[in-house]
């Protein structure tokens, strides 16, 4: 961990940008955002050991190896079927990214209501320039985090979702982000979701690796704008293969009377960092942040959340649960800001974790900063082993240790899974979790 290595990685990235920027898509405005972002990155640098935000998630080793930038080259899309990643009941509206690049061949978007746009971000850069410029890089600001800066500099594609005012998309939209290949890669999928007034949408994003035989780092950023009275749900399902690392950031802005629910389920992946930030910009908003992670081996999963209560009468609710086995490590850091204006705020946060082995560990840290006086805020965090009395009770009725353990862990996980409101997805997740627990 010498300074030379750190400088090395930063510089490599900055040089990579100079080399590639001419081919990156977007208007002049986007190009100037990129230039600004790389300056931001230059200032911030990859977080080091001293970075408070990445204290327990050391990113330096990830960038030690030479990772080539593949995001500007269209990947060969031959020879794999998307079916393995599709979910029953969610096949109609599938938007597929292969190594961060929208793949029309794998996508099928047949059941979109009138006016709803789901397309590649690259396409939106030119066809929906106004909308993009109005929202892009506004909620995820490149000056605040090195990875946001890198994303804004490099990202050339992703999924653009636009739901006009007064429109309910009945069918969920499923984004499948596939990482594949045999060369080490660094990719930057970037999504922008704009949900109009009085509208509703459900978006599921799966992160999956396919025949990945080299190290890959995915820096995925999603911005969500939820306009007045709109209801949006965003589910993330992370099941990358062993050699994939994922830094995933979601930045949402909610306007008056809007509802936004997120659910982040992490089942595999070597090294995962999730940043989830929600700004409650109007009164009467409701937001739910749920997360479940099951770790094994030497996996590392870090969930950082920030709910920024800027206006009165909003409600936020967070529930994150982790089941950590083997030598895996976890982090939960939940910030809640309640600004002076945000009277009558209700903000709850709960982080519950079960350690299945003596070598597994988790760092949890709630951070409540409250500047208004008429608010209800609470947080709770527990980390422990499986309840031994419950285990004994079940075994004394004839259940094997494994069945007793699985029953208790499923019940534990179910508190999060039952918040999933797409039935097919809930069933799928139940099944995945059941299989994982039975392993």
């Amino acid at each position, binding site marked *: 961990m010498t300074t030379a290595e750190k400088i090395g990685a930063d510089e490599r990235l900055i040089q990579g940008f100079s080399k590639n920027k001419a081919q990156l898509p977007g208007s002049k405005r986007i190009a100037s955002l990129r230039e600004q972002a790389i300056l931001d990155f230059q200032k911030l640098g990859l977080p080091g050991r001293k970075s408070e935000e990445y204290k327990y998630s050391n990113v330096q080793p990830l960038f030690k190896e030479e990772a080539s930038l593949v995001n500007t080259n269209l990947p060969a899309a031959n020879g794999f079927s998307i079916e393995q990643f599709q979910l029953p009941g969610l096949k109609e509206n599938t938007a597929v990214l292969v190594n961060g690049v929208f793949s029309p061949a794998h996508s099928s978007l047949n059941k979109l209501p009138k006016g709803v746009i789901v397309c590649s971000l690259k396409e939106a850069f030119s066809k929906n320039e106004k909308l993009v410029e109005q929202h892009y890089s506004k909620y995820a600001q490149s000056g605040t985090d090195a990875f946001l800066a890198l994303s804004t500099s490099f990202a050339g594609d992703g999924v653009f979702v636009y739901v006009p005012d007064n429109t309910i998309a009945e069918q969920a939209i499923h984004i499948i982000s596939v990482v594949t290949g045999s060369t080490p890669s660094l990719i930057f999928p970037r999504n922008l979701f704009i949900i109009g007034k009085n509208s509703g949408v459900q978006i599921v994003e799966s992160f999956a690796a396919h025949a990945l035989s080299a190290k890959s780092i995915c820096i995925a950023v999603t911005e969500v704008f939820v306009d007045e009275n709109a209801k949006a749900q965003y589910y993330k399902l992370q099941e990358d293969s062993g050699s994939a690392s994922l830094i995933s950031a979601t930045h949402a802005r909610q306007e008056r009377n809007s509802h936004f629910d997120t659910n982040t389920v992490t089942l595999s992946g070597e090294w995962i960092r999730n940043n989830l930030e929600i700004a409650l910009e109007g009164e009467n908003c409701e937001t739910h942040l749920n997360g479940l992670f099951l770790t094994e081996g030497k996996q590392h999963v870090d969930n950082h959340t920030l709910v920024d209560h800027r206006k009165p009468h909003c409600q936020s609710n967070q529930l994150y649960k982790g089941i950590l086995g083997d030598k895996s490590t976890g982090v939960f850091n939940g910030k809640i800001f309640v600004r002076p204006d945000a009277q009558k705020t209700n903000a709850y946060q709960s982080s519950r974790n079960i350690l299945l082995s003596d070598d597994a560990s988790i760092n949890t840290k709630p951070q409540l900063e409250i500047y208004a006086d008429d608010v209800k805020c609470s947080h709770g965090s527990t980390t422990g082993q499986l*309840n031994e009395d419950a285990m004994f009770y*079940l075994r004394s*009725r*004839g259940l094997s240790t494994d069945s007793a353990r699985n*029953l208790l862990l499923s019940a534990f996980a179910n508190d999060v899974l039952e918040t999933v409101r797409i039935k097919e997805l809930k069933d799928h997740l139940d099944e995945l979790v059941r299989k994982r627990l039975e392993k």
Partner: protein
Amino acid sequence: MLQIKNLHAGIEGKEILKGINLDVKAGEVHAIMGPNGSGKSTLSSVLAGKEEYEVSEGEVKFKGKDLLELSPEDRAREGLFLAFQYPVEIPGVSNINFLKTAINEIRAYRGQGPMDAKEFLAKVKEKQAFVEMTGNLANRSVNEGFSGGEKKRNEIFQLAMLEPVLAVLDETDSGLDIDALRIVANGVNKLRSKDRAFVVITHYQRLLDHIVPDVVHVLFDGKIVKSGGKELALELEKKGYDWIKKEAAIA
């Protein structure tokens, strides 16, 4: 069916059971009484296989097998059941689901296939009626938010579902109202058979009015200091434990 010989057991180096001898035959009902802290629950925990308790001496035979060698689940599969003094609450695990798993694992142990869903549901219905339990309780999470009496009733419901050969009831009567006491006692009486035995731990004669025991034992300071017929319970009810303690001190 159950033979306990000179059983010594304790926890963290502290001896609690100091030489228990007990012989329970099929078809019998034994009552164990005794002052608080004398070791009654410890005895039932040791029988059920709670790992915190270390057995330092003695042996326990169940249906001729060395009970202490078996895991808690295998004891249950062999037909031992403990109705807990303090049943734990298990949020998120449904009563019915867990009982189905229990029954099927017990059946698998005995070389039988899983019970079919219809048969299982019919059994649930029958046994619920048997302990006059509402459907709602059976479908809820195990003991979660149950009142004290409901928890005890749920123990008897599980007992009825699992049909053990030896049931140990640890103060199942505590916390029951008069009707529930009658229901639980009737339940046990209906389950009495020549192949099944009960060990009933209680502080009160009134339960033994309903479940008439063959033998009554007094456990004091980790030992059974007196055994007798059902009259012994009446005598204890009248005189308390002082005379027993004195007798034990002399002996």
